[in-house]
């Protein structure tokens, strides 16, 4: 054991032995390790925190505990087999991972997806955004002592997962998006069930607000805590609800033209102060806006094919296999070798529930990508955590971490 008062080196920093002195203990800076397995870190995140009493003086996030080398593994898979891999990065917003990768490949091979696929993708992305925000709201409110919120949020989350299961056969990690469109059209009865959900969701959001908006404990824990200025957030590359809560109306759905978003009428909620309360308000307002997008996309859902017809990249329909030799050959080639993508590289970014989710794909002409890289918003946003927490109480740090909403599967990849 080290002597009291000395620095003990540990991975990611040094640990100051707390010492045995009694008089100077009030002002001594003590380094505390939080995590990696801690309920309040929302995953396998480790924090090395310098504390002076209860006040955070410095903080270093240590990450990499769930690094599984997905980007490297993708280099050994044909393009269509990469899709289920990338879904498992940010395991709460899997539809967004799929869209980032499929969209990037589609732009590389210049494959236009049919309008119905665009609308279906928009519907599922926005359902996934509501799902992701519900998981965030439930777990963060749980951290702040509002235990019942978790059950209310997970009730609606379960209905979204039921919808995913109905359309794709899986509740999570659905592999529903394909290069060229979506794997299957929505089944009979899906629309009615979705309309029921869309009609009910705004009432449910009102319930959440009724539970939290006048909750004295919740308000005093969130208001005025974790403030970072808009300029500093931009310097740190923070995007998504965190940036919008600081008053910057930046949303890739509005800024860039992708999927059916240009045809949708929705608002971008922004905050004013940029504290944890604004972050909560922005995300809750986004759930309502997402519901509106789902409803509009369902109303305007065009008829037609749900996946592109290009047989070089898209599997032929099952019915053709028994009648057409050519379809059988295409099917065989696509399943065994996969399709080849000509040399090129692309960076395609979409607005995920946490900010700018970018996918970089480098193609070398073979049937496997030479590099797949994800610019994960959780990974970049985590850099703002130090600014949010230094100078605040350790209890506010836990609140800020919840409001930051990092998904460690996405951070570590």
């Amino acid at each position: 054991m080290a002597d009291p008062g000395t620095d003990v080196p540990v991975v990611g920093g040094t640990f100051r032995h707390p010492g045995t002195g009694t008089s100077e203990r009030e002002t001594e800076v003590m380094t505390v390790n939080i995590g990696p397995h801690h309920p309040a870190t929302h995953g396998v995140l480790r924090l090395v925190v310098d504390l002076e009493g209860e006040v955070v003086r410095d903080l270093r996030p240590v990450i990499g505990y769930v690094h599984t080398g997905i980007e490297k593994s993708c280099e050994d898979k044909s393009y269509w087999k990469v899709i289920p891999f990338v879904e498992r990065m940010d395991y709460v917003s899997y539809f967004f991972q799929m869209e980032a990768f499929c969209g990037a490949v589609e732009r590389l091979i210049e494959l236009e997806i049919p309008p119905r696929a665009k609308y279906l993708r928009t519907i599922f992305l926005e359902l996934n955004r509501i799902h992701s925000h519900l998981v965030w709201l439930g777990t963060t409110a749980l951290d702040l002592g509002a235990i019942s919120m978790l059950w209310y949020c997970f009730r609606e989350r379960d209905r979204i997962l039921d919808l995913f299961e109905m359309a794709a056969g899986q509740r999570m990690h659905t592999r529903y998006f394909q290069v060229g469109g979506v794997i299957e059209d929505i089944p009979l009865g899906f629309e009615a069930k979705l309309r029921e959900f869309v009609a009910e969701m705004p009432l449910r959001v009102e319930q959440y607000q009724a539970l939290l908006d006048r909750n004295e404990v919740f308000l005093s824990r969130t208001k005025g805590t974790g403030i970072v200025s808009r300029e500093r957030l931009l310097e740190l590359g923070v995007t998504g609800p965190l940036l919008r809560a600081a008053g910057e109306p930046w949303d890739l759905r509005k800024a860039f033209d992708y999927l059916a978003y240009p045809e949708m009428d929705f608002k971008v909620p922004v905050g004013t102060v940029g504290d944890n309360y604004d972050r909560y308000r922005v995300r809750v307002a986004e759930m309502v806006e997402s519901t509106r997008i789902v409803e509009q996309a369902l109303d305007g859902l065009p008829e037609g094919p749900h996946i592109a017809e290009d047989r070089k990249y898209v599997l032929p329909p099952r019915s053709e296999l028994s009648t057409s030799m050519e379809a059988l050959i295409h099917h065989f080639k696509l399943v065994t070798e996969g399709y080849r993508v000509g040399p090129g590289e692309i960076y395609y970014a979409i607005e995920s529930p946490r900010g700018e989710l970018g996918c970089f794909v480098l193609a070398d002409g073979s049937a496997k990508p030479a590099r797949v890289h994800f610019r994960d918003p959780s990974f970049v946003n985590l850099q703002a955590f130090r600014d949010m927490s230094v100078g605040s109480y350790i209890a506010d740090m836990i609140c800020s971490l919840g409001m930051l909403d990092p998904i460690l599967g996405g951070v570590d990849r």
Partner: protein
Amino acid sequence: MPDAPGLELIRGEIEAAHPGAVVDTGFAQGRAVLSIDPAHVLTVLGWLRDAPGQGYRFLSSLHAADYLPSTPRFAVHYELLSRDRVERIRVKALLEDASPAGGVGDGGVEDDPARSAPPSPATGPAGQNLPEIDSCVGLFPTAEFQEREVFDFFGIVFKGHPDLRRILLPDDYVGWPQRRDFPIGGEPVTFTYNERNYG
């Protein structure tokens, strides 16, 4: 995105101020790409950020790619974004491999004596020379984690980075796993206790 003539204008203006900075320009899939000499990375990024009429003030993403077997072997990509004009531009700093003879599973295709012996070579755990580039954390603080990630996976050293350590892999890890000559499955099994005793 700046269109193809717009990209040539940018190239011309950078060339006028910093001769030799731009190596090549490319325009594919509607994306503008500016390939630059790594020695000028900070001047080019700073110019794109601050010059009037440019305003690429937001660094969306910083990542690297290994172009083995072509030369130069590595490229660090800077995805810049102008939020006022909603335009993206990619700056690619092309880097030679600094260790032509050595390193993990060397492909044996690199031979460029001009850059293989930098004046102050940073060395990796295996003692091989690593490619170097200036860190842009001073211009874009968001690059801190992302440069650490590139160092972690490609062994590209960012000079002037405040805290250049491995970020996702363990500190004592040997090798640069995202390089193309690093084999998949080249990872030894760490927890072999059960295998040894009961396997």
